[in-house]
């Protein structure tokens, strides 16, 4: 009987530590996703249509991830936090890209050369064409 109790304790400890580990990982991912969201906002993602949509989607995924975590679906929460983080990073990068393209357009127009080969306007149109799921 004593032997059985010891085994139960060990098994319980392992399960508890695994659960704590998953929870800690999700907490880390949540922080990481939050940081990515904040960085995208600081970059001005909300001032461009597509990055703004990505930002909104990332917030939504953060909420869904938190809910999944509350429901005990740690693996689902992990993936949702990862999606939120990736969407926020993409929003930030698209904002940077659009800003760079705008600077390029201004530089060419200052030169009086409007025949720039640089893509102008919303540089993410191409991406939407193939992979947009927003």
């Amino acid at each position, binding site marked *: 009987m004593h032997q059985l109790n010891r085994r139960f304790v060990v098994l319980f400890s392992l399960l508890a530590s695994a659960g704590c580990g998953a929870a800690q990982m999700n907490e880390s991912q949540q922080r990481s996703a939050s940081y990515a969201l904040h960085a995208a906002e600081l970059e001005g993602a909300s001032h461009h249509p597509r990055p703004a949509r990505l930002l909104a989607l990332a917030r939504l995924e953060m909420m869904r991830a938190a809910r999944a975590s509350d429901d005990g679906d740690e693996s689902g929460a992990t993936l949702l936090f990862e999606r939120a983080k*990736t969407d926020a990073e993409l929003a930030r990068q698209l904002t940077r890209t659009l800003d*760079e393209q705008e600077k*390029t357009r201004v530089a060419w127009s*200052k030169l009086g050369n409007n025949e720039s080969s*640089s893509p102008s306007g919303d540089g993410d149109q191409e*991406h939407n064409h193939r*992979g947009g799921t927003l």
Partner: protein
Amino acid sequence: MNARIIVHPLGALGLAMIASACQATAPSPELQTARDVYLKAEGSRAAMVAPADLREAEQALKSAEAAHQRAPRSQTERSYAYLAMRKSQLAMAKADADTARAEQLHAAQLAAARPYVELLEETRGELAERERALQESERALAEANGAREELGVEQSGAAEGQLTISGVFFETESAELSPEAQSQLDRLADDLLAHEDQRIVIRGYADARGPRRYNQALSRERAQAVREYLLSRGVAEDRLRTEALGKRLPVARNDTASGRANNRRVEIVAARASGAAADDTAPSARRRQERQATDQERQNVSGKDKPGNSPLR
């Protein structure tokens, strides 16, 4: 009789099972899209600019494929496929930003180079203009030379109103007038007799061989020979003035026989009616040289440098 298609119940069941199996193993739309976007990113500059992001996309795509193998169309497959697509897009966005930055650099370099380009274009324009002017001058010179060869008389464009008679040439070490030279001088004498107020300057030259003093004396003798001939044709003495320029002011190269023959000459410059000394080209430097030559001639008036003393001419 109407044709009827009879479907066996077992066959229908088999078809339904096959269709169900196909649907179950077909990738989700998310996975298919992720594959397409990843392939597109892999074939673009993103592979060079953002290889780390592309590796993450590849890893997510593999996870999606694995999830598809375990449980087709599961939420896990869709989530990993979504991540693969987004990470591929992230890599392409970075590549686009990199392209934009490169273009900015290009534009900045062009802007920096613009003043130089404009200067270069202006210089090219000026050069083209000068080239045209030069060609025009060469054409005019060629025409003038043609006329000179044909007639032996040239009206200088550089000094209006001056007349230069050429075609009076001499043999080596000789001041003797050839028949052709006499013919030229006959025409000149007629002109001078017809225009009695016209004064002329007779300039003698030599080629570059031999001592300077000797050439100076020889050129003086050549000028004197022309003067004597014109006097013999009745031209008044006070209308004629001689100058000896030696080997100075060659009209041709002295390193060829034909060039030297052209330099052994007498030129006759008709001054204006006012009597001012004439110059066929009129640069101030040339006038200075001529004044010096005249001074030199005066110094040599004693005649101690006789051509006959030289072994060369």
